[in-house]
């Protein structure tokens, strides 16, 4: 569950979020829309604990190890292979059978054949698929996804859509294309 009250975030003189009230119940799937610079990414980073609010209160009842965060950057190492990247995160999240899980995740997102290739050689879409594998690897209870369909081709978008429909985790998804997830969404927030 996420609850924000009068949440504000400033970067220097620029106020990105201003007095936002938000409540995402457990199991809720909330789409966050708004123009560029409206604070979608900042809101997700605040919820992930990667940034601190300037004012207001923010309560996220999910421990950080149970958060799946997908940002603008893939949070991966270019010199490690796809499998090595997931293995590293699997170790840090202390996942049982992490190799099997990593392999299954790569297979699910169509990257099994590229498992031993360095992430730095991946196209934008493949990198996004790998970032999605990293995000879902530890079966998170809270998903914080920033433009998850970015860079994905039709097949990748379909795979992600199926993944999101299947999962019951609470989710806050920032998107410019809310119609893609309209059926799955339980609520929408529009940031100005």
């Amino acid at each position, binding site marked *: 569950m996420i609850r924000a009250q009068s949440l504000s975030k400033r970067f220097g003189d620029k106020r990105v979020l201003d007095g936002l009230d938000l409540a995402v119940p457990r199991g809720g799937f909330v789409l966050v829309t708004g123009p560029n610079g409206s604070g979608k990414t900042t809101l997700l980073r605040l919820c992930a604990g990667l940034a601190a609010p300037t004012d207001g209160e923010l309560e996220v009842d999910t421990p950080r190890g149970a958060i799946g965060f997908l*940002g603008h950057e893939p949070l991966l190492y270019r010199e490690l292979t796809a499998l090595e990247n997931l293995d590293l995160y699997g170790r*840090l*999240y202390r996942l049982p059978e992490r190799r099997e899980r990593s392999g299954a995740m790569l297979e699910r997102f169509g990257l099994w054949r590229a498992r031993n290739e360095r*992430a730095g050689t991946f196209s934008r879409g493949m990198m996004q698929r790998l970032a999605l594998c990293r995000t879902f690897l530890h079966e998170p209870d809270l998903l914080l996804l920033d433009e998850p369909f970015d860079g994905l081709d039709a097949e990748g978008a379909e795979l992600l859509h199926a993944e999101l429909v299947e999962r019951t985790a609470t989710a806050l998804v920032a998107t410019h294309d809310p119609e893609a997830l309209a059926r799955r969404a339980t609520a929408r927030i529009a940031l100005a």
Partner: protein
Amino acid sequence: MSGYAADVAALARKDLLLELRSRDTLPAMLLFVVSALTVFRFALPAGSSARAETGLLWIAIVFTALLGLGRAFAAEREEGALDGLVLAPCDRSAIWLGKTIGVTAFLVLAELVALPAFALFFHPLSWELVVAVALADVGIAAIGTLLAALAAASRARELLLPLMFLPLVVPVVIGGVGASVAVNPASFLGFLGLYDAVFVILCWASFEYVVTE
């Protein structure tokens, strides 16, 4: 292996693997330290004191470390991987310790070339010098890694890191030169050990605050 030790091992292993593949940092450190010692060899007048010669070795070591530290978080900056590590449920000090182990390893490898070169160009190595270098490596890597993480978040990181790092390692140079040339090196070695203990504890405890806003 305990969970904490396993996290540190995984992170240190990752850094060594990245360097093995990219070869970004270590070759530059090796080239720099050998070049610096070569320049010092010809710049120093004949008959210079052992203190002057040893002082130049320590300057070479500090700047070689600075070169490596400037790249310490390069891989994490590239694709935002530091956020991924910060989000992981491991103790955040493990990120610092893993990185410090990697930095220490690169520094030791550079010194495996630098110390014989110093012996060749200037004078034979003493055991006090070798012990002092080993002790200094720990302190340099500990404080350097923390400051490199701090600087990595800034746009002016190339400027910020030397500005923060160099004043803090002046005691290492004083202790290192003292241990290498003093009649009684024990007090200087003790000073370096104390410096290590203080900064390792400080950096270990404060890293969490450096990587979170």
